[in-house]
């Protein structure tokens, strides 16, 4: 189902037209489409992807976009090189990552008990997770880069394993400096067979949006 949510903008500082939201949704579909193609090749299995939803919401409602924000999750955070205002954030359940790692690593299987914090992970496991993040973010960014004819290369992904709300603080803080509204382009990823449940989000600042719309020749409001 196609979902576009636009919060009624009482503070009057950001407005996006339905056309602009549509564009973002399409970018999200294209980016996530490439990301999950790469993932399914990696695990030799089909990956279900939901349609992308675009949210323009007040910063304090961002946790509401996630089911069970008060649970532990893996977070993989990548900033685009030379465009640090554009990030790709991936959130996976603990079980998802464990199952994924075990598929990719035939020899040493890990279990929930082995995964208590990022610091406690053994190097090999950590590098697998990092690589998964890299592949997803890289393919997402690459798809957009090709579309827009610009360079978009994600930096080294940063991992976190903690309460999801706590992880979101970092992201919300960063995107809340110049505005009380944030844009999140969100796509759900699922592989039933391996209990993979995740979300991949593109988070652009308002300045990045201006740049993107300019490249696409979309008229944008002076409000952005």
């Amino acid at each position: 189902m196609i979902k576009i949510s636009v919060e009624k903008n009482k503070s009057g500082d950001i407005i996006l037209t339905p056309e602009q939201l549509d564009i973002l949704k399409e970018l999200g579909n294209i980016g996530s489409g490439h990301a999950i193609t790469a993932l399914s090749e990696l695990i030799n299995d089909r990956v279900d992807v939901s349609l992308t939803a675009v949210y323009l919401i007040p910063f304090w409602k961002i946790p509401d976009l996630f089911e069970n924000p008060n649970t532990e999750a893996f977070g993989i955070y990548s900033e685009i090189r030379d465009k640090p205002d554009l990030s790709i954030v991936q959130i996976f359940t603990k079980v998802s990552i464990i199952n994924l790692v075990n598929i990719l690593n035939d020899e040493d299987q890990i279990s929930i008990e082995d995964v208590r914090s990022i610091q406690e992970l053994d190097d090999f496991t950590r590098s697998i997770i990092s690589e998964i993040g890299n592949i997803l973010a890289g393919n997402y960014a690459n798809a957009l880069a090709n579309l827009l004819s610009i360079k978009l290369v994600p930096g080294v992904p940063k991992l976190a394993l903690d309460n999801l709300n706590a992880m979101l603080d970092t992201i919300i803080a960063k995107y809340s400096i110049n505005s009380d509204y944030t844009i999140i382009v969100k796509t759900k990823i699922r592989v039933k067979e391996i209990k993979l449940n995740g979300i991949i989000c593109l988070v652009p600042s308002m300045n990045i949006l201006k740049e993107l719309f300019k490249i696409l020749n979309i008229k944008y409001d002076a409000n952005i």
Partner: protein
Amino acid sequence: MQENLQIIRIIKKSFRGKSILIEDFNSDRIIDRIKLPNDNGEIVLPIGHYALINGKSDKKYKFPTIVIYGLGSCIALILFDEKNKLCGMSHVLLPKSNLRKIINYPHKYADLSVQYLLKEFLDRGAQKELIKAIIVGGSKIFDLANNVIGEENIKIITDELDKYGIKIIKKSIGGMQGRIIKFNTRNFSVLVKLTGDNKFHEL
């Protein structure tokens, strides 16, 4: 007004944002219920919001527990004046407000929340020299070199409290783990649980 419900009221002030204000029954303020307790009877405080409890009520009053599930780089700022039965908590996100021309959520900023909370307290009869502070949070969840928001939040809040002469009597700050905080507004006790821990501990 039913006594067995936690009533939250929004006070529409001169800035355009909203805040959650929990007031006693004697208040004649504007009532607009936006936030009810969760299944545990707790009030979850969103980022950039504050809650204020005025315990000076003749009627039987149920003091709520104010919670934040998943405090990362944000700071939970608690002030209380035991003698005058006032306490409050804000959920601060950023260190400084100076980049914004219009402030819709003052409690989003460390450099504003202290003074705004203080003013609310003094308006309700608190005595500044009796006010105490508890601060929780400001951790670094993603290990990025430029991820200093938590640290800066701690610094600015500490400086602000110092500036107004308010003593920090308890704290659980910094580190690399998220926290859950529960503030009991009846006895001003604070329970904190870090992500890696099994249990809450009282500060």
